[in-house]
Every structure is written in C-alpha cells, then in structure tokens.
C-alpha cells in the first residue's frame, strides 16, 4: 500500500477538520472495500479518517416507527440487532448474508451505502424501503442518493452518520450469490410500503441498483409468486459478464422476485 496518514476522529468536527486539511484524504469505516482497493493500488488516499469512534455512529434504535442505524454499525451488528429484527427482519437477514463472518464483523452499512457497488446488498434495501441517508450536512432520500456505478449524491468529504428506515407492511430480500465473490449475481428486494409496492434489483443493472417497473406493475394488485414469474422483465440495460448473460440475469430477477414474495 502507498503511504497514508491515519487519523482516528473523535467527533464529526474532528473528521471534517482532518478531511478539510487533506484534499486526498478519504473516510475510513470498516475498510472491507477501501483497504482492499488500496492494497491493489486502485486507490491511494494520502490520509484516512476513521469515523468509527465518533459518538452515535454505532448502534440501532427505534424512533417511533422509524428504525435508525448508525453509519458505522457493522453488518454483524445489524444482523444481530433486536430492533432490526423486530422492525424489518428482511434487513437483518440481508446483513447476515453479506460476505463472510469476518467481513460482517468489520464492514459497515455507511461504507456499503457510500460505496454503492453495483452488486452490493444494502442499496437494494434502501431503495425498496424508501430509506433516508442522514449525513453531517443534510438528509437525502434513497431515490436521490444512488447515482450509477459507485456513484452517490455525497459531496466530497460529506459524512454519512445514519440511515433511517420507515416501517414496511411486508419486505424480503433474496439473493443469488456469486460463489467466489459472495456478492449478488442478482439480488431482489420486494417491499410493500406506504407508497405502494417497490421492487429493487442489485447485481444486474448496467447502471447499478434500480427499481424494476415490470415487477412493480406485475405485483401491484397481484402480490404472488406467479405474478413475479410472469412479469415482463427485459434484458435491456442488464450486465453481461463471465458469470452470466443479460438474458440469464433477466430470468434470475424474476426467480429471485418470486422467492422474495414467498418469503415476505
């Protein structure tokens, strides 16, 4: 790895100051993406500002009907949280399926959301559940947050502090794992919420996570496995790679959606 200066931020102010002092510095959370890319020389930040010790960044809580998850809460902590299991069990289940146990002990929801990997699991949940990303500057709805491959609405140095989830009537996530990377070859999140049915897809879109209009149309009015399987999911705009063609992914989207409806 190239040389870098490590700073453990004790507060948001501390972190903002450290990030302001070095243009090439990056926020560090679980490191399960960032350190891995630094080892391969795909990233070379001259500074790393660790946000995990900032008060309030770790933990889960219920605020009325809203579930609040601190940005530096690990995947294992989300999976094991009584609040998450009570509010949205699908989210606990999603977190328990990210990577392997060691990745789950370190990787965090804030890091995953900020990274917006096109095959990551959390973006599908945030978009389907209509979550809100809370930063040190503002609140951003999931609809406006994710922006293409690895892109987000975050400004340079903007720090995610928490993610807020409204309660859904029903929700489930099912993923078909790419067995070597453990990421989603295709993952589908289905949710019945206050603004209707939302179905999101990760691992498949050329532009990253997306809402499937075809599945939302098919499941609105007929919330059934058969409706999901019969949906007209097109291969247009889907990825083709060594793991699967766009047509294979289009079919897998329907199969995962049907399984998710059955599980919700």
């Amino acid at each position, binding site marked *: 790895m190239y040389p870098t200066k*490590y700073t*453990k931020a004790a507060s948001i102010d501390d972190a903002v100051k450290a990030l302001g002092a070095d243009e090439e510095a990056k926020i560090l959370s679980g490191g*399960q993406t960032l350190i891995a890319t630094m080892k391969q020389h795909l990233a070379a930040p001259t500074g790393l500002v660790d946000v995990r010790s900032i008060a309030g960044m770790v933990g889960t809580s219920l605020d009325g009907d809203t579930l609040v998850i601190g940005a530096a809460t690990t995947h294992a902590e989300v999976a094991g949280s009584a609040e998450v299991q009570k509010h949205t069990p699908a989210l606990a289940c999603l977190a328990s399926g990210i990577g392997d146990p*060691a*990745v789950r002990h370190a990787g965090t929801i804030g890091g995953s959301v900020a990274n917006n990997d096109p095959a990551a699991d959390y973006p599908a949940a945030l978009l389907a559940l209509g979550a809100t990303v809370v930063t040190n500057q503002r609140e951003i709805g999931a609809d406006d947050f994710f922006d293409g491959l690895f892109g987000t609405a975050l400004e340079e140095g903007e720090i995610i502090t928490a993610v807020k989830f409204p309660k859904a009537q029903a929700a489930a996530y099912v993923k078909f794992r790419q067995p070597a990377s453990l990421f989603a070859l295709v993952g589908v999140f289905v949710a019945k919420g206050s603004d209707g049915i939302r179905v999101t897809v990760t691992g498949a879109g050329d532009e990253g996570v997306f809402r499937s209009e075809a599945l939302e149309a098919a499941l609105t009015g007929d919330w059934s496995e058969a409706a999901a399987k019969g949906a007209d999911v097109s291969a247009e705009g889907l990825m083709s790679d060594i793991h699967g063609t766009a047509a294979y992914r289009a079919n897998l989207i329907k199969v995962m959606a049907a399984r998710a409806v059955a599980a919700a």
Partner: protein
Amino acid sequence: MTKVKMTVNGKAVTREVSGETLLSEFLREDLRLTGTHIGCDTSQCGACVVHIDGKAVKSCTTLAAATDGAEVTTIEGLANGDLHPMQAAFKEHHGLQCGFCTPGMIMSGVDMVNRYKAEGREVTAEAVRHELEGNICRCTGYHNIVKAVQDAATKM
C-alpha cells in the same frame, strides 16, 4: 507514525506504526508472529484471520493503527499449554494437509463455535460450511475441516 498500544495474546504491546501498516504485517514483521498467514491480495482467502476483541476479522484488511486499544488473539495465543480443542480436533481429523490455510480456519472455527454456543445454535455440518465461506483451502476438500470443527464444538 501513530503510537498504538494493544494486547496481543495477553501481552501488552506498544509500537509506532505508519498509517498504511496492515495488522497482518504488524503481527508478522514487527512482532514476528508468523502463524498468521497471507494467502491473497484480495481480502478473500481468510488465511490471515485473527480475533480482535473476540471477533474474527481479516488482519490483512485491518489497519494496525486502527487496532489501538484492542485485544488481539492470533493462532499463537490459542494453545494454553495443551493444544486448544480446535487445534487438537484438526490434528485428530486430519483437517489439514499443507497447513497454509489452517491458522485462519482454526481462528474462524473458534469464532463460529463461540458465537453458536452463545446463541444456543447447533453446529451442523451445513452451518460450518456456511460459516467458513471466507476461508479457502486448496488441499483438503473441506470434509475433514468440517468434521474437525464439529468435533471441537463438543469439547469447547
């Protein structure tokens, strides 16, 4: 350079480390604890797994500087005079051939059994296979590793 103080295998350690020093490098090169292995450059093989505050993590994907104040256990810290039950079970069931993946397998296995016991869950063969997804072995074909972890679970 950042000053770090941590406990490694029960012993207090204080050192100056640079920001980019990985915990795996720190353990192997500064502390000469070479039982923690490096098998990949992509955070995928699990040969480097150690426990930080009782939880299995990949030391190759952890900064030494971030481990300040933590309690670290490596494969060298597991045996307490006698082999740890997980080590004894790997020996008994022939859970290793070249042994390269073994430190990581054992650290992940101990972590898994501790968690399952705390939650009152049964350590089934299927569960072991799922829990060891982040540990890759090029030799054994995994069957004997699974047997070893299950056997150790009855003795831990």
